[in-house]
C-alpha cells in the first residue's frame, strides 16, 4: 500500500506551518503522529498534495501548569500524557483516557492535537475535552483564538478549525474528580461508547463519544443529576436521531450501552 505522490515539508515553527497552509489551501494537510492520516493515504482515501509535518515544531509538546489550568501542547503523544506526573495528579481523567487509546505503539506516536483535529466520532479524547470544558487553542494567519470544547466538534471528521489554523495547545482546567469509561469495538478498539464524567460540587459534566455522529455533552443527564446514577437514563436525549449504527452495535444496542456507560461513569 503506497500513498499517492505528495510533497513533504517539515515545518520548524507554527508561523511557517500557517504560512504553508495559507499558501496551499486544501491541497495541504498537517501531519503530526500520522496514525489516522497515513493509513487513509495508503488506501488512497486521502490524497493531499502537500504534507506539512508539524511534529518537530519546538514548544508544541510541553505539558505545563498555568494557574488552575494544565496546558498541553498539541504534539504531546498519548504516551506522554499517560506518563505525565502533572496530568496523573491534577487531570487524572485524561491520563486514564490516553491509556485506552490504541496500543503501546500507537500511543508512542499519536498526538492529542492530531486526534482532536481528526475528529473521529469514535475517538476517546472528545468525551473528555467536553466533560472537562477544555479549551482548544488554535493559531492561524489572523492570530490565535480559543475554541471551547463544546463549540469544537461539528460532525463526523469535522471541527470548527479554519483551513489555515493549527491546534497549538489544549487548556484543561484541573479536575479532581473525573473518570472515563469505554466500551470498545472489538476490531478497531475505538469507542462504541465512551463516557467522561467530571464531578464538581453537587453537579456533574458528562461528555459522550462514539454514540452519535458528533461527540456531545449529555446535558439532559447533567440536568437530571441529583447525586446518584439515575440520570443515566437520559444518556441519549437530544441525539436520538443521530445515533451511529454498524454491525457491532445498532442504534438500539448503542443507546443501551450509552446508558450503561453513563451510569458506570457516574458511579465510578
Amino acid at each position: 500500500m503506497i500513498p499517492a505522490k505528495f510533497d513533504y515539508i517539515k515545518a520548524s515553527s507554527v508561523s511557517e506551518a500557517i504560512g504553508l497552509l495559507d499558501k496551499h489551501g486544501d491541497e495541504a494537510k498537517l501531519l503530526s503522529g500520522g496514525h489516522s492520516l497515513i493509513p487513509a493515504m495508503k488506501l488512497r482515501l486521502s490524497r493531499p498534495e502537500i504534507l506539512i509535518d508539524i511534529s518537530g515544531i519546538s514548544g508544541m509538546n510541553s505539558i505545563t501548569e498555568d494557574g488552575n489550568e494544565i496546558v498541553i501542547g498539541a504534539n504531546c503523544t498519548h504516551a506522554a500524557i499517560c506518563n505525565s506526573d502533572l496530568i496523573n495528579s491534577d487531570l487524572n481523567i485524561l491520563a486514564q483516557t490516553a491509556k485506552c487509546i490504541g496500543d503501546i505503539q500507537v500511543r508512542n506516536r499519536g498526538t492529542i492535537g492530531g486526534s482532536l483535529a481528526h475528529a473521529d466520532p469514535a475517538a476517546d479524547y472528545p468525551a473528555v475535552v467536553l466533560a472537562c470544558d477544555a479549551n482548544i487553542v488554535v493559531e492561524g494567519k489572523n492570530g490565535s483564538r480559543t475554541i471551547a470544547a463544546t463549540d469544537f466538534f461539528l460532525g463526523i471528521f469535522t471541527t470548527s478549525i479554519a483551513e489555515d489554523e493549527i491546534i497549538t495547545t489544549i487548556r484543561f482546567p484541573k479536575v479532581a474528580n473525573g473518570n472515563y469509561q469505554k466500551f470498545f469495538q472489538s476490531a478497531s478498539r475505538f469507542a462504541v461508547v465512551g463516557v467522561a464524567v467530571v464531578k464538581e460540587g453537587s453537579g456533574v459534566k458528562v461528555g459522550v463519544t462514539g454514540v452519535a455522529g458528533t461527540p456531545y455533552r449529555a446535558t439532559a443527564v447533567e440536568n437530571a443529576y441529583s447525586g446518584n446514577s439515575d440520570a443515566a437514563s437520559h444518556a441519549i436525549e437530544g441525539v436520538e436521531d443521530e445515533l451511529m449504527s454498524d454491525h457491532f452495535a445498532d442504534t438500539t444496542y448503542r443507546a443501551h450501552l450509552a446508558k450503561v456507560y453513563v451510569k458506570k461513569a457516574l458511579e465510578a
Partner: protein
Amino acid sequence: MQISLKINGKTHSHDVEPRISLAQYLRETLSLTGTHIGCDTSGCGACTVHVDGAATKACTLLAVQVDGCEIKTIEGMANGNEMHPIQEAFKENHGLQCGFCTPGMVMTAADILKNNPNPTEEEIRHGLEGNFCRCTGYHNIVKSIQHAAETLNS
C-alpha cells in the same frame, strides 16, 4: 528527499521519496527484511521497531519523518550470535511458530519490559494488544515475556 538516520548503531543516508514508509525503507533500501509488513495500516504490529527507544509501527511512519532519529530493528537486538534475553525466552518457551509476527512481538516486548520490568500477565496481554499472532494463541508469547522479565531482572 535526503534523510540521515542511525539504524542499529550505524548511520545511513539516502535520498527517499516522501511517500516511502519507514518499514519499506528498511526492507527495500537497506534489506533489513526482519521488519515485516502484515497489514500496512498499523493494525497488526508485525512492523514494530524502536524509534528513539519507543516501540513504533514502522508501516505508519514515513521514512522522512524519522530523519535524524535512532532506529532499532529486530536485526539489532542480538549481540552477534548471542541472542537478546527476550529472543532467548521466545525460543525457550516456544513463543513463535511461523515467525512472521515474531520480530514485532520481540520489539514490543522490549518496550513493555523497559517501562514495566515486572509486568503481570494482564499487563503483558494488554501491552501486546497492538500485535496480532495467528499461530500461538498468545499463550507462549505471554510465557516468553514472563520468562524474559525474570532473566532481565536477575
